[in-house]
């Protein structure tokens, strides 16, 4: 089982030390990425997605504290690695595509320079690196890549820049690609194109993808497995069918209800989840979703729920609904 997963995160706890106390941004996070799979992470702003990504690539802020946990990648724990070892992995074995294509590339260096710079650990010649980059650019759909190789980021549109970012990330053929809301800043038509392209490339190259987004439609189309996060915790995870057809955590259910794509009848009032995301430095003692939940009991407030398996590969952090499911 272990060798079939390229990334296994167990019991990850990350906090940020601030003047107001420690913000517990991630609590008891377990996440597995099987070989060649696309795992989606869904959640609102503040649910811990960014912290999760930063933890994996080792770019947490200076005031971050990893209080417990392990992240086994290709056989060794990322958390125990030195900065030098991490740097060897970043951009080689683990690559990333960021959220905003307009600001993700250095404005005064040509895209060619940036793409070649990233390959600095590679022993091949400069021409070979150039050829590899140009090849990758054409694979992501950049027209006339030979000429445009020396162009600057501002000479490309947003959609093109995101493709370039994907090309940069995949040209080194990483084991794991982390996509941090790559289509959030793009309009719908571009989004579809990018997702399709990503899917094709992934099938060709066989890498695994950790796809973070709050766009449920994209997650449903692209991902094999889904992890739902709320307030720093994993509240539900399972296969994409499990999540979208048999959503079992109250938060996931609400999320699907509120997705505009799921609304069948025209209406003047869109459904929302009443209440607010909790403050991370003043965590409640019980379930984190308690104050916004329709299914809660008093017991939910008293003890912090553990994550339980309700069917094979499908886990939720809700004792109330877990009991209903398994009975």
């Amino acid at each position, binding site marked *: 089982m272990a060798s079939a997963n390229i990334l296994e995160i167990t019991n990850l706890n990350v906090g940020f030390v601030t003047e107001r106390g420690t913000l517990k941004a991630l609590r008891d996070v377990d996440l597995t990425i099987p070989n060649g799979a696309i795992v989606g992470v869904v959640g609102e702003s503040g649910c811990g997605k960014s912290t999760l990504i930063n933890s994996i*690539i080792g770019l947490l802020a200076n005031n971050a504290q990893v209080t417990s946990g392990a992240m086994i990648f290709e056989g060794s724990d990322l958390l125990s690695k030195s900065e030098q070892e*991490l740097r060897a992995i970043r951009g080689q074995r683990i690559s990333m595509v960021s959220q905003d294509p307009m600001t993700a590339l250095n404005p005064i260096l040509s895209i060619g320079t940036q793409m070649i*710079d990233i390959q600095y650990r590679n022993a091949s010649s400069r021409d070979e690196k150039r050829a590899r980059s140009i090849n990758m650019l054409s694979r992501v759909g950049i027209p006339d890549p030979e000429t445009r190789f020396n162009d600057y980021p501002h000479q490309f549109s947003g959609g093109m820049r995101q493709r370039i970012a994907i090309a940069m990330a995949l040209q080194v053929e990483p084991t794991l690609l982390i996509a941090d809301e790559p289509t959030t800043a793009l309009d719908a038509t571009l989004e579809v194109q990018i997702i399709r392209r990503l899917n094709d490339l992934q099938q060709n190259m066989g890498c695994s993808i950790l796809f973070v987004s709050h766009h449920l439609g994209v997650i449903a189309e692209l991902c094999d497995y889904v992890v739902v996060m709320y307030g720093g915790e994993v509240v539900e995870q399972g296969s994409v069918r499990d999540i979208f057809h048999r959503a079992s955590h109250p938060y996931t259910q609400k999320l699907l209800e509120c997705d505009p794509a799921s609304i069948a009848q025209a209406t003047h009032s869109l459904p929302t989840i009443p209440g607010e995301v909790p403050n991370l430095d003043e965590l409640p003692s019980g379930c984190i979703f308690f104050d916004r939940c329709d299914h809660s009991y008093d017991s939910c407030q008293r003890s912090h729920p553990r994550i339980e398996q309700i069917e094979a590969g499908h886990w939720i952090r809700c004792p109330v609904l877990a009991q209903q499911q398994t009975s």
Partner: protein
Amino acid sequence: MLFYFIKRVCLGILTITVAVSVLYTMIHLVPGDPVKTILGPRASPEIQAQIREKMGLNDPLPVQIVRFLGNVAQGDLGQDVFKRKSVNTIVFEQLPHTIYLVLSGIGWAILIGIPLGCFAAVFQNSLIDRIVGILSVSCIAIPTFLVAIYSVLLFAVTLKWLPAIGAGDGSLLSYIRHLVLPAFAVGLGWVGYLARLVRASMLEVMGEAHVRTARAFGLKEQTVVFKYILRLAILPTITLIGMGIGILLSSAVFTEIVFARPGIGRLIYEAVTSRNYPVVMGSVLVTTVLFVVSTTFADLINAIVDPRLRTKD
């Protein structure tokens, strides 16, 4: 790119024309007889009438300005009132000294100021950062002429390591020796300006998303700092230096006077105090040209280094 260059040069010529016209008009707005002002009170009425005719002062003002500008375009800046040498010769004799002074001043300021600012930003909030901060503010606050005077007091009068006066006996080594203290005085304030600007600029760039991307791709820290951050952060300093030519020239005036160095600053000062108007006009004109050249040059360098500017216009 070429179009941009031509546009800037035309703008420069326009600026020079306007400045000269303004100055010419200012001189003629002085209450009283312009000829008396130009020649001084000692000239006799006949000479005044002669000069007035010869200088075309009986013509309307716009005609005079045009004539002056026409002369300038042909390279004729008029004649020195007292020594009867062409202003051209006088000014261009002195100009190189000022240029060497300004270049060496700003040169050492760049060599020291930019690395200081870079360190302060990379080690933000550390002891180095705070020290650089205080030093920068102090360098900016202390006036150039005081730095000049005190360096003379310390290094020339008290320690007798370096000369205090003049530009040397003609040999290169002597010239350089005489340039050390003046260049120090001119450059010290700039160390402060540059360090602060580079620090602020780098901090701003460091917070931008593309720096995170560069790190996320595992680039070596020194690559990230120098190729990806510093190169971008340096852009504002180019503009600052280009626009700072005004400050540099002011500093040059004080420095040349304190060190009794030859140069256009001292030339202007002496010309003004002796009411040698043609020399004043010629020097101010040359100064304005220098100013326009320097800002245009800075803009051009900016356009070369920052590709975003090239396609904007």
